[in-house]
């Protein structure tokens, strides 16, 4: 039962089959499976119940027992909400692009040429975990005052802050991917064949870290879709802020749950699809 563990180093393990008591192994396996099923069912229930309650509320009709898609249709008919959804989706895309553009060339460059700075880069990337968003936003207010005056009032400007928030997650995803391949050899081989740096990054390295790139994108996207603190305290309206405003006006409004459920399902399906897409290439070089 050799497994190629997808860890740093990626060394294939030698197959070892010492003689072992079969009965104990089967029994252990059975006990383990029982344990796993119990755990999955228990946790599955715990996680699904609030979401189920949310979806059930969103399908509430006029009378308590009825079902109706009114709340879901309301999503499309509320201009503020649609606007907020649009802005947030656009923000997610912009932030993902910015984060990748910021991190990938830098991390590759550091691994290749400037190893001594890698500790600093790592520290800076993990620093946002130490500085809570609520603290950061206190200091971001003056910066955003300037941004408002010179770069416009659009909530899309939030991407500057969101990229910082996403750094720790994206860094770790990308680091895992970059550590698994031998950048030095790949880039030296490519350079010796005459490729310039852009080609090396775009056509040699990027395809090899596809899974890591996808992971980083998804983590960033999920972060942006769920972000509330910075948007609300910088006086911008994004999806979460709009949902919060609606909730203050109408307690338990069906449209709140419909939107939340939609956002959740959307992100989950995306993550699932991309987790399959990333693995497809595993067999090839």
């Amino acid at each position: 039962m050799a497994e190629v563990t997808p860890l740093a180093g990626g060394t294939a393990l030698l197959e070892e089959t010492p003689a072992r008591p079969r009965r104990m192994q089967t029994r252990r396996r059975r006990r383990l499976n029982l344990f796993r099923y119990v755990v999955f069912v228990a946790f599955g229930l715990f996680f699904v119940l609030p979401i189920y309650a949310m979806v059930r509320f969103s399908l509430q009709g006029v009378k308590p027992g009825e079902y109706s898609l009114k709340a879901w249709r309301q999503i499309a008919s509320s201009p503020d909400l649609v606007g907020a959804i649009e802005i947030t989706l656009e923000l997610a895309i912009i932030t993902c692009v910015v984060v990748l553009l910021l991190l990938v060339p830098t991390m590759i460059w550091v691994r290749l040429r400037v190893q001594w700075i890698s500790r600093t880069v790592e520290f800076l990337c993990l620093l946002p975990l130490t500085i809570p968003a609520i603290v950061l936003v206190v200091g971001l207010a003056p910066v955003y005052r300037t941004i408002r005056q010179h770069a416009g009032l659009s909530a899309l400007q939030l991407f500057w802050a969101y990229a910082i928030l996403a750094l720790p997650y994206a860094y770790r995803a990308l680091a895992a991917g970059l550590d698994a391949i031998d950048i030095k050899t790949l880039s030296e081989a490519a350079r010796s064949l005459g490729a310039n740096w852009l080609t090396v990054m775009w056509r040699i390295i990027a395809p090899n870290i596809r899974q890591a790139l996808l992971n980083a994108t998804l983590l960033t996207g999920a972060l942006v879709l769920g972000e509330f603190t910075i948007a609300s305290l910088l006086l911008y309206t994004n999806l979460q802020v709009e949902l919060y405003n609606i909730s203050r006006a109408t307690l338990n409004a069906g449209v709140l749950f419909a939107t939340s459920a939609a956002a959740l399902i959307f992100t989950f399906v995306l993550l699932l699809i991309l987790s399959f897409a990333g693995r497809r290439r595993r067999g090839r070089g």
Partner: protein
Amino acid sequence: MAAAATTVGDRSARAVRRPSLAWTGTLPFLCYVGIFLLLPTGIVLWGAISKPTGHGLTLSNLKLLGSSAARGFFLNSVELSAITALVGALLGAVLAYAVASGNPNGVVRRIFLAGSGVLAQFGGVTLAFAFNAAIGPSGGFLTHATWYYDFPQGIGLIYIYFQIPLMVLVFLPAVDGLKVQWREATENLGGSTLQFWRHVGGPLLAPAFLGCTLLLFANALSAYATIVAWENQISYVVTQQISVAMTSEVGLSSANEAQVLALGMVVVVALVMTAYALLQRRTARWLR
């Protein structure tokens, strides 16, 4: 590859190693982080030690941190974060083990990983709504929990909901690193499951477990959106109080108080994250 070709014979002009300008390749990253992370942090820390009038520095603002009210907020924050981190870590570790011990390409693993990825970031406004819909005292669909607005039970349950997936995400690599061979070796030597965990698995996973618990602790400490959307008007934790200090309309609004509390938070979280980083390094050794 280090020193380029030097002119022969001119010793004084030849440097042992010419200072490379390669680091300028990281300049865009450094500038970006400088403006949008270091600068705001500096503004906050500077504000914490500035006089309220704005001219001059003073350490007297820090006395605020010693006031009984501030101590209450920090104690509440630590209490809530510690409870949810421990419970979340234990439950999350169990779930992570269940996921890791299955087929690495299996559907179950994918679903739980995707689910964890979503739910770890789900915390916040929408999560509080979902819980209000499920067990809220006024609109609860499953039950009307009278303890929903109690601290720390009510909000703690909501926090645990996103702490567990986060634990799965950060602890899974460590559990994956527990090689099957070690388990089989223990068996071959006649060891039971309990003995495996006590002498092999436990000690190996301990640093990672501790480190991930600390991460969960820092995560709970920093959480703001969830407890705001919980709609409890009583300000319990430091993050809420920072926001109150910024938006209070009863004459208590004080940018300095917000900044001092922020400074306190940064110190606490920095300590926790340093411990986490040290533990991570120890863990990484075993996983290679």
